[in-house]
């Protein structure tokens, strides 16, 4: 019998009924959260967005 691969991100769905009804990020989405190149791009993007909102608020 082939061994079933356990997907770490999906195991939490089973821990709680409320968890089962929401979404949990997969491995790729979680990796991207701390990927330096991607996060540097996001850093620039978020800063621009925040500056626009700050500008609209003053």
């Amino acid at each position, binding site marked *: 019998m082939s061994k079933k691969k356990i997907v770490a*991100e999906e195991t*939490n*769905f089973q*821990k*709680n009924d*409320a*968890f089962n*009804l*929401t*979404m*949990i*990020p997969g491995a790729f989405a*979680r990796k*991207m*959260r*701390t*990927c*330096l190149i991607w*996060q*540097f791009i*996001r*850093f620039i993007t*978020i*800063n621009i*967005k*925040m500056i*626009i*909102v*700050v500008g*609209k*608020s*003053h």
Partner: protein
Amino acid sequence: MARLVVLGGGVAGHTTATFAARWLGSEHEVVVVTPNAKWNWIPSNIWVGVGEMKKEEVTFDLAPVYAKAGITYRQAKAVSINPEGGESSDQPFVTIEYTSADKAGQSETIEYDYLVNATGPKLNFGATPGLGEGSQLGEHTVSVCTSDHAVHAFEKLTEAIEKMKAGTRQKILVGTGHGMCTCQGAAFEYIFNIEHELRKAGVRDMADIKWISNESFLGDFGMGGLHLKVGGFVVSSKLFAESLFAERNVEWIIGAHVSKVEEGKVHYELLDGSTGEEEFDFSMLIPPFAGVGLKAYNKAGEDITDTVFAPNGFMKVDANYNAGAYENWKASDWPKTYQNPTYKNMFAAGIAFAPPHIISKPMSSPNGTPINPTPPRTGMPSGIIGKTVAHSVCALIAKGENAHLHEASMAKMGAACVASAGKGVFTGTAAAMTVYPVVPDFEKYPGTGRDTNYTFGEIGLAGHWIKHILHHLFIYKAKLNPGWTLIPE
């Protein structure tokens, strides 16, 4: 020469006083009355509470900063306001009581031409039996509302971690300690920073972490939640908040009014009227906020506190306090100038102003217990309101009582918020969010109440970098270092 007295030296009061002093110059006097000797960048207290920062990194002495700015500094708490003056003079004045070691308990009156009430909140621990007495934290739980509280919280957390390392499973409960709390964001940050620290310490599997909150849904944050554009959809913050909790294996109890706290146990009532108990080994519960208890007297010495202040102790301003039922609420109910309607030379800024109503949908249990978050007015809105009020006071001093007052309605103001979910240059994460406007305007933005082009959020390392940079940037600004006026609130 005119004298502006600012009550409070937090984000709103400090912003008002420093800008007013700069714009008014030495021709006029700015006085700050605050019971604290140190300024505290409160958003970073959560990092003190997990041992990632020292108290000294989030505080600094106020006296040298005010001396540099030419501001008269009184380390004292305001006790009462006499907006019509007293028996011998029509000049309005405040009565203060010193808190500094050398003058503790001594009273003094300070006459003013203009008054800005920016006292912030009273941490009303006493509202929940067992949570504390008056504004004093009790012995059963911890808090991160002040830097000293955060130091104490870290000591208790360290004890819990040591127990986990020794093989004793620990129950951790974080959230709000009353049905009418605000500041869910601080508790949100603290619970995920604890979770992050437990993983770093290698004891995450020894902890059961649970959230308890007065929000009717996760992600409400006292703003009725927000809607974000993600992947071509516009979705509620509820989905993203629940996702983060599920991902980090943090269970939740929501719609909860904590009615009593005992050693190792809280009692709560839910929106459906049912009651329950939750045991804990370590718990951080945010207290509800109230006004600091300032009194007001007219010229005859009669108590006019009810005229100047709302029942919750916050100062009445140019808001619509007669909006009635939820269905009638409008964005225009929210104050614009923060001027007291009775005494035009008084303003309130930051948490000290009385909001017209809450932002979230009002809810109560079948037993009549109100269980809903009260409106957040901290951080960026506090700073912007403080600066706006400073503008108005300076205009009144320069041009007289008919001067145009500046406006900063929370229904036309956005906010940028960064909620830490764990600290680390390469491993940290934070939810970076903007919301525009803070108070939803369903007439202008039918559906979500907000402009979804300017309301967004995402979690990642970039958010952590931004929060860390903002920590240094705002402390730099508050110290009035070169170029401080260029840094926006």
